[in-house]
């Protein structure tokens, strides 16, 4: 069962493009952190538009590997191609390419137009030197795209997605300031996430046992593990179903199942985490490794808590700023989950644990 907010948003946008209303709707942006269902909504809308050929609207899902330079030209080429494909499949000979309207579907538009930042936006070479000139060029490309949309607003619509940082449309000096209708999606709350997760699992005895066991363990385990992100909830559900299928209901103790579950789940989630951790500085990564050895802080969401204890470990308050930044990236809690939850479980449920140094020089916990 799709969460209410995502369902409603998809239905609302599909209605806008149902062709029952005259004229194209205004440009929309779906804004929200990753894993909140933006791509799902866009796919739903694309299917709704494609299944409603009577509206004469062509859905053009623009490839994500775009560069702001030449954006308009590339998009125009792609529109022509999609119109051609549409007409090939059309049974109505009277349709002409010029009669067709288009809805552009562009994901992660913030990556194209957000300025500055090491990891954000594109820094384009220009004949003038310096970061200022590159930003000027980037704003120019945004201006071109905006002009293109305004001049063609009667036959080209736009649905875009963006992450939390949408400075490109909040800065009054940038072309897209106050340009879009904005619909926001957010992570699921604990009750919403639990409902969604349980619905994904079904009624199998093993799955129910696992969920109940973890619920007894801590009331907010699902948010701690997934942050309410739909993509992670899907991964977690898939993991549970995988274990149930392979291991069977009775062959393993629950504690062992939990451990297997966490291993498998984090294995799936790791590529995402690696990317987040990769962006940290050396110092931040080092701080993470230290924090990961403090299992009691797994359930602590307060930076103060974490940083004050880290300073005990690192012997300095200088680490606080680094920790704050690392916590903000979410990387801390993820890494903590992986190592610390297992350690915590061992503390609580299993035999005494010994701290040893592994071959890479990191301290870790092993069960006796």
């Amino acid at each position, binding site marked *: 069962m799709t969460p*209410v*907010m995502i369902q*409603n*948003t998809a239905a*609302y946008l599909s209605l*806008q493009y149902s062709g029952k*209303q*005259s*004229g194209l*709707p*205004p*440009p929309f942006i779906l804004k929200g952190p990753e894993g909140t269902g933006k791509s799902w909504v866009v796919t739903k809308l694309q299917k709704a538009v494609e299944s409603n050929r009577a509206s004469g609207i062509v859905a053009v899902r623009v490839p994500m590997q775009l560069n702001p330079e*030449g954006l*308009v*030209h590339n998009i*125009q080429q792609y529109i022509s191609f999609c119109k051609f494909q549409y007409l090939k499949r059309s049974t109505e000979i009277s349709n002409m390419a010029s009669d067709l309207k288009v809805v552009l579907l562009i994901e992660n538009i913030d990556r194209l137009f957000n300025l500055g930042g090491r990891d954000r936006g594109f820094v384009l070479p220009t*004949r*003038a030197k310096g970061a200022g000139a590159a930003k*000027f060029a980037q704003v*120019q490309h945004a*201006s*071109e795209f*905006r*002009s*293109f949309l*305004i*001049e*063609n*607003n009667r036959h080209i619509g736009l649905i875009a997605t963006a992450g939390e940082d*949408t400075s490109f*449309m*909040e*800065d*009054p*000096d940038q*072309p897209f*300031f*106050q*340009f*879009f*209708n*904005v*619909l*926001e999606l*957010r992570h699921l709350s604990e009750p919403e996430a639990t409902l969604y997760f349980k619905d994904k699992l079904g009624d199998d005895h093993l799955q129910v046992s696992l969920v109940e066991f973890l619920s007894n363990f801590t009331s907010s385990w699902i948010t701690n593990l997934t942050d309410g992100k739909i993509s992670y909830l899907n991964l977690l559900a898939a993991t549970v179903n995988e274990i149930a299928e392979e291991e069977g209901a009775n062959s393993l103790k629950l504690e062992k199942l939990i451990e297997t579950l966490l291993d498998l789940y984090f294995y799936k989630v790791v590529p995402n985490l690696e990317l987040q951790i990769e962006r940290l500085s050396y110092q931040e990564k080092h701080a993470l490794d230290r924090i990961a050895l403090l299992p009691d802080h797994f359930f602590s969401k307060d930076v103060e808590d974490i940083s004050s204890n880290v300073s005990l470990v690192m012997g300095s308050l200088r680490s606080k700023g680094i920790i704050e930044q690392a916590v903000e990236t979410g990387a801390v809690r993820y890494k903590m989950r992986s190592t610390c939850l297992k350690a915590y479980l061992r503390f609580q449920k299993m035999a005494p644990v010994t701290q040893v140094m592994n071959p890479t020089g990191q301290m870790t916990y092993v069960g006796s």
Partner: protein
Amino acid sequence: MRIVAGAIPTGRDFYEGRRALVDHLKDCLQGSDVLMLGPRRTGKTSVIKEYLATEEAASEEFRYVFIDLESTKNLYEFYLRIIKEILSASNKWAGLVRFSVDGMKTLSNKLGEIFDNGIEIKDYLGGVSGTALRIKFPKFEPEKVEALSKELQRLLANIDRQLVIVLDEFPEMIWKLGLDSEDPKEQQLEQRKQQTELLLAGLRTVRQEGAAKNHRVIVAGSVNLDNTLIHLQLGNLLNDIKRITVPYLTTDQSVELMSLLGSGQGFTYSSENLMRDFVRRQFGRCTPFYIQIYAEALLQMKLAGQVAGAFTEDDLKKAYRAVLDNARGPRYLLDRIKKYYSKEEQTQVHLILGSLAKQQFKQTGRLCDNDCEKILTSVDSSIVRHQVVELLAKMRSDDLIQHSNDGSCFEFESQLLCNFWHYQLVAAEFLV
């Protein structure tokens, strides 16, 4: 009616309360070109687009080109875009331009010569509307610009029907003139003045030549255009063009617009007149944009499942708070002040805004020039009168404050802005 919180509402999304402006624009264009001014987000482009759509639907003979100059960075591009859009329009309306194939080739060749026979000119001219220009521009040379202007005049002379040319975001382009050179900043400013002068002179020639064929030009932009031209000492070069000012919505219009937007979304309210009274009290006179994002905030609550049935007063308050906190809402003014005012000026601006908000919020009095001077000198006795006057003029040109109707004092453009500044600078209250 759909919520259009940013783009250009036209057709079924156009607010009929602005129909009189569309008719007024049509009437003015009978006799002259038009300069359409108004503060940001008051609906200038919407009125123009609605005029174009209405006329196109009413008459098969109506011809126009609409050019958004936001991305245009120099005079070469300015003329090339107009030429290109006219040629694109002649694809849409066959026979618009009385050019033979040879005539087209001649035009293309002449333009190519201006740009050292760059092949891209032909591609650009032949491309669809909105095609980006990819040629490498030469350094600015007035002779080349004049040559382009002549080609445009020649093209217009070959159009026998009336053509309406819309140049939107005109001031945005002026701000970019001179910036694409590699020269030092002082020289860039001097170039901006020179190029703006050439632009306005060229525009005047085009308009005068075009008038012979009954062509019309609509130039649109924010009220800052006047200040920009005065700053460049070119204030008199647009004084022969008829002006239309697009005002803020009246209080009644704000209420009506919100009512229409709510009906379009199927909004209901827990009591009759709840929404009307709320908008009347908390928005008053304001730009259509703020009403639109308020409707969007209410929609967001519906989609999130936070409101199942009718909106209560609490819901309206929550949505209002969301508008005040929204980076697209009046919050952007905070960033503007940080960016364009010195540290010292920022403190002074906040003092004035805070004092005005306090008085207007509680309706306890008014703030005039002398009051502002007293407020600032009480904090810094070295401030002199002319500094205060300059600061207030800057704040007015940035739409932070405006003169009251009788011109004697200052006020905020809308109750929304008053509430915002009260919330930001005075106390946590944001609802009168």
